[in-house]
């Protein structure tokens, strides 16, 4: 059996989970894998939990949504509650260490639960706006679904037009990606 990873990413509208899912799957596709990304679309833009479903495999992928994810990433308290149902005994559950008051809402059946300080790192070391790229780094660090090079190429493709105006943004985004990878290193 080749590579097959199922990811559910969830956050508040505007946190950028859909962008992250788009970039990761684009990178996976460019790397020659089969990839499928579907957003849970509805009224999330008007305030709600935004969920992205990502599958990366070496074979054509079946149904767009799935029951149990290999990795669940939740970026807000509501996202933690919303994504519990995608957790199974083999799931790695990642949430942001900054989220308060979810101690009793964390899944009890996960293989591993990991709190990472993505929001803090983005705010203090980088820029709040690259928070989602920190998360993307964490996903890549945890799953190795794509190489860092392809991830960077995909970021370049998506944000290249912005980098042209301000090359410092490129550096900032790449740094965010690497910090994200570091955050999960040795923990998964």
């Amino acid at each position, binding site marked *: 059996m080749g590579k097959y990873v199922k990811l559910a990413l969830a956050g508040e509208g505007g946190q950028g989970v859909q962008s992250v899912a788009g970039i990761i799957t684009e990178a996976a596709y460019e790397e020659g894998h*089969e*990839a*499928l*990304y579907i957003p849970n*679309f509805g009224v999330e833009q008007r305030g709600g939990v935004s969920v992205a479903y990502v599958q990366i495999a070496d074979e054509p992928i079946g*149904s*767009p*949504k*799935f029951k*149990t994810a290999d990795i669940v990433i939740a970026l807000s308290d509501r996202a933690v509650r919303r994504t519990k149902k995608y957790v199974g005994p083999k799931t790695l559950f990642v949430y942001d260490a900054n989220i308060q008051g979810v101690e009793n809402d964390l899944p009890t059946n996960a293989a591993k639960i990991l709190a990472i300080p993505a929001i803090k790192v983005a705010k203090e070391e980088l820029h709040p706006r690259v928070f989602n790229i920190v998360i993307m780094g964490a996903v890549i660090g945890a799953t190795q679904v794509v190489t860092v090079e392809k991830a960077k190429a995909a970021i370049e493709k998506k944000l290249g037009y912005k980098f042209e105006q301000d090359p410092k943004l490129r550096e900032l985004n790449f740094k965010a990606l690497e910090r994200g990878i570091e955050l999960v290193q040795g923990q998964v």
Partner: protein
Amino acid sequence: MAEKPIQGEKRAFMTGNEVVAWAALAAGADIMYGYPITPQNEIMHYWTRLAPKYGRSFLQTEDEISAGFTCVGGVLAGKRAFTATAGPGNTLMQESMSMAEMMRLPTVLVVCQRGGPSTATVIYSQQEVTMTCFGGNGEGFRIVYSTSGQQDLFDYTIKAFNTAWKYRFPTFVLGDGYQSKMRESVTIYDPEARGIKMVPTEPYVGKSGMPGVDRDPSHLRNTYNMEDELYEVVMEIKKEYERVAPEIVEYQEFDTEDAEVLVVAHGVVSRAVQGAVKALRKEGIKAGHFRPITLRPFPVEQLKAAAGKAKNVLIVESSVGQLEKIVKHSVYGLTTPITNYFKPGEGVTVEEVVEQVRRLV
């Protein structure tokens, strides 16, 4: 003449809505008539972005009733015209599509099924099967392709134009919100590069020559005064529909040869069923999958043959029996027990299908 939108073949990573726009371009569609509705919007967005580059047109109408009828008008003028909609928009377009049925107009309509009656959800379902196959007043003499993903959307959008213009029946591409919004890989191509010849279009009205002298007069009616007059016309359409149906019918079979449980599903759900069949076979459970690609006309004989060999038939769909109705009608007389797994407005996963099949063996 603008250059071809797609040269040869190329791989791409796209949403289904983007795929439909590219397919319509590749098929040489002249014009799209549209009115926005989720999850169909981006077909319009991509089309309006791409069409001007290749000398194609777009008309946004005031509602779906108008989008359907302007599409009918475009076809009458000989344009390779299409429209796309979803949910309540599909409801409103049934009026124009039944006119197309009566007048044998090759309209093409892409349906991105959303959930539930009325406005309901903007997400996904398979609840527009009955309406797309049999909606409107009339008998449902139309062609409906149910797609299961990006490649199908590309292939069958192109094919829909050819089927429509070859047989002159309104033709539908029945996708859904998942396919519209998901991104996956697809091979897009210039039909000609694959030896697909686009059926030429011709106007129904304003033809050259003197009617009755140089050519037959165009006889365009959707109103009849007499019962027997209507009877004759409808029976003529029926006869023609039944004659061409065997040429149009399409289906796929996965491990049906020795299948003890035959799972019948269409569209995106068939992807979960295929995954389930693979998993079940590994466990030694003889499962198979029959996927009707044309829901109208329906692959009746082929399904009967596959179902007749099985010990159980399981129908899986994201609606409450819209596919089941067609299946039961088609296999009438069959003694193999039929059960179902219905999830209206919700996606079906591999694990669920596996569980349902295990229950039967």
